[in-house]
């Protein structure tokens, strides 16, 4: 709760500090704010509290995901250096919007009442609609914002409709009570309930860009400024999946049989669309967009596994995916800013001009591909072992394994470009000190988690 209040206050404070002439203070200040939130959040560990007549519950689940999302934002901010350098007049607003959307994200992982879920999603999304179009002079950015907004509003409507139908069927918004209501009726459910459940599934699937509700993702991710794309594909996705699992575990555990077929279809489709879609891209940014769809698929795998290992595997996967993605988008941002292209060819020769960038990018690609020595390997490992608790789900793991091998193909195209393809001109890419430090930090973290995953995997 303290983190929500602090973030809101800091967000507003940031807006006012933006009136000052010097923009240089904004980045350090925003980093400081996030550090404070990160630290304060940890104090709620093992101290479960309910707020506002059970609207929000801050439990370990919420604290863990809040920690990951705050850390992700913290690590992402250093890559906004371009805005700082160019003296972008809206810098303070960007930071504030990110802080506000983090508030929404935290509500999404700590709600106890479906209305709070809705409010959280809206706080998060509206900030995202704005930042997607923040590059006002770019046609693609405007298109992204419009597309994201129209689709987002439409699916939010579906989500809300679902919430209302569930309310109609059970008479409550509280997720624990919804769960209890089904047990009371012996699992018997009426059409209104099923319809509501289905709409909820569709609404949230849109938010985490699961297929077949993913069509907006590549366009929006590609059109938005890369800095915000990184935020969307990490924090928004983590919040979405964590909210999804919390909802299913608390409210719909009893009706598992009813939603399992739908979810498994969505999962498989997401895996296939994400991985196959990524293969045919020529732009690294668009590839990363599809790769984020495929990772939503892996995250959904542990959701459909739906057992005691699901929560911790989602947590670990989110962390591994988010850290690797920040590097991926961060390096992409640095490279494409200087070379004016986000195609694979833009990475050519990076291994020679910027060994550090190339190394960090390699670690991140290996992690996204799930190769041992990186966090991504254990992330996939925990997901697969969660799924294999039920040996009847072996087929799902086989599909995922095959698609993971496909994933290696497109991630390694970047690695190959960096180390093996000759470049037209070997021009060193300018990286700020704080960005370099962040890249080193993430690489070390990724390798550390790849060697000692127990640091995080056992906490939930």
């Amino acid at each position, binding site marked *: 709760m303290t983190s929500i209040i602090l973030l809101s206050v800091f967000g507003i404070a940031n807006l006012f500090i933006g009136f000052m002439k010097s923009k240089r203070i904004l980045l350090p200040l925003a980093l400081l704010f996030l550090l404070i939130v990160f630290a304060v959040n940890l104090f709620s560990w093992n101290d479960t509290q309910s707020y506002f007549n059970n609207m929000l519950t801050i439990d370990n689940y919420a604290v863990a995901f809040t920690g990951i999302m705050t850390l992700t934002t913290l690590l992402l901010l250093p890559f906004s250096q371009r805005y700082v350098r160019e003296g972008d007049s809206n810098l303070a607003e960007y930071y504030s919007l990110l802080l506000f959307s983090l508030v929404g994200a935290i509500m999404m992982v700590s709600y106890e009442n479906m209305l709070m879920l809705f409010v959280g999603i809206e706080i998060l999304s509206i900030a995202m609609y704005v930042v997607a179009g923040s590059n006002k002079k770019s046609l693609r950015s405007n298109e992204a914002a419009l597309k994201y907004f129209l689709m987002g509003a439409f699916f939010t409507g579906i989500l809300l409709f679902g919430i209302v139908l569930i309310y109609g069927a059970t008479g409550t918004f509280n997720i624990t009570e919804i769960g209890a209501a089904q047990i009371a009726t012996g699992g018997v459910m009426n059409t209104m309930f099923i319809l509501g459940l289905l709409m909820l599934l569709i609404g949230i699937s849109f938010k985490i860009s699961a297929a077949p509700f993913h069509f907006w993702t590549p366009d929006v991710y590609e059109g938005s400024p890369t800095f915000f794309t990184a935020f969307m594909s990490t924090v928004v996705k983590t919040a979405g999946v964590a909210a999804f699992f919390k909802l299913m575990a608390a409210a719909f555990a009893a009706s598992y049989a009813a939603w399992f077929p739908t979810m498994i279809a969505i999962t498989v489709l997401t895996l296939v669309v994400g991985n196959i879609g990524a293969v045919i891209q020529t732009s690294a940014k668009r590839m990363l967009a599809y790769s984020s769809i495929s990772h939503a698929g892996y995250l959904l795998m542990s959701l459909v596994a739906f057992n005691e290992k699901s929560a911790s595997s989602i947590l670990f996967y989110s962390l591994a995916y988010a850290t690797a993605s920040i590097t991926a988008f961060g390096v992409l941002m640095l490279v494409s800013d200087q070379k004016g292209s986000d195609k694979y060819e833009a990475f050519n020769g990076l291994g020679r001009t910027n060994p550090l960038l190339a190394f960090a990018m390699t670690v991140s690609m290996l992690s996204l591909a799930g190769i*041992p*020595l990186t966090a991504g390997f254990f992330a996939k490992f925990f997901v*697969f072992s969660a799924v294999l608790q039920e040996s009847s789900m072996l087929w799902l793991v086989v599909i995922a*394994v095959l698609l993971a091998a496909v994933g290696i193909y497109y991630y390694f195209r970047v690695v*190959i470009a960096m*180390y093996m393809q000759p470049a037209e001109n070997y021009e060193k890419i300018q990286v700020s000190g704080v960005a370099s430090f962040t890249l080193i930090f993430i690489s070390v973290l990724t390798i550390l988690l790849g060697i000692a995953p*127990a640091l995080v995997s056992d906490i939930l």
Partner: protein
Amino acid sequence: MITALLLFWPALAALLVLLIKGQGAKKVAFVAALVEFALSLFALSGFNAENGGTQLALNFPWIESAGISFSIGMDGISILMVLLTTFLVPLIVLSSFKHDYKNPNVFYALILFMQTGLIGVFVAMDAFLFYFMWEVALIPIYFIAAVWGGENRIKVTFKFFVYTIFGSLFMLAAFVYLYLQTPGIHSSDVNAFYQLALSSGEQSWIFWFLFIAFAIKMPVFPFHTWQPDTYTESPTQATMLLSGIMLKMGIYGVIRWLLPIVPMGVSQWDELVLILAIIGIVYGSIIAIRQRDLKRLVAYSSIAHVGLIAAGIFTLNEQGLQGGVIQMLSHGINVVGLFFIIDIIFSRTNTREITSLGGITQNAKALSIFFMILLLGSVALPLTNGFVGEFLLLSGVFQYNYIYGAVAGLTIILGAVYMLRMFQGVMFGTKSEATESFTDLTMNEMAVLIPLVIMVFWIGLFPNTFLSISEPAVINLLSIINR
């Protein structure tokens, strides 16, 4: 403790080498690899060869809540593989001294880093540690081959990489399944896997999940398509690492992680595997006969040799397994020697085409002698190392089925055909333009070849030095398989 030291020393040394600028890196890497060899000899001195179980073991929790432990140790088979690795790596490093690779610090650091992975595969006694090390060995070799390789390197090495990862992901899925079958709080220890009571249907599919991973690595026909191109395009050091040591990971994997875990699965499919392996022998040999490029020729000959090893170990008798173990050593030594000689010839003449070479014996007496010895070892002439292994392997296959034995025996005849044809074309006859001013071996090249040739004779004349180390372990393993 010594096992852990063996495992981590190369990785530490790799970090050290990374810091060294310029061509001094190779010297440091060489010294580090020699130290590693000395460590392995020290480990051997503390190893009780009469005990068939795991020794020099170390075990501490890795992911405690999941029952996954960092468990390493060696039995007779492991220690031979470790010795092969530690023996070959310094020679491989030494063999590169005449090359000036760009970014030498990274090149040699990757070789040493890979050594950690290789040793790790051979000493891992926990399934997930094994898988982990399996991939740790792959990543450096991919970069070595892809960054320092020949013209088509990018495409070729990428195929290799994706192919092997594809296989190993199946292995991972099988391991996860097996792990979840272990009772109580699960365990991925090798002995826990050995004790599983799996139904015959489960064993059948687990067999394939594991076999595909190992078969791609070896490679067994028809999973070999990545191999000739990768061997040809890689820099010689990478080819040596791949053929000399890495391929043994696949065979070792079968011995440790396939046969004893799913014996019923093996008995359902061994006939098919033997047939594939024997097809590989004949196919590899015939294609080798048709090759004009020296490196490709040896690459295909390697498919034939590995086919015989695969056939031998799947017979599940003591001769077959012992032959497999000793032949892994022999093949590693011979193939590294042959690739080195091809590298020497290439560096002097700039060609690997048999037709544009010839008459080298006239200028290079010493080279001819070394080449001949390694070649005879490779065609399994008695008194050389190849004979011991192939004899045991073939007698194993004969015990299994004499028709298979007869067909597999073709390897000796066909092997002689392509090897002697190569020797004739390259070394005898009239000098060509390329070999006109061929110079004999340098001291450095001698230093690489002499230890290899000593081993050719040592294994050929006193195979018991090595067979006695692996015998108790093989018997122990067979008793687990026939439980």
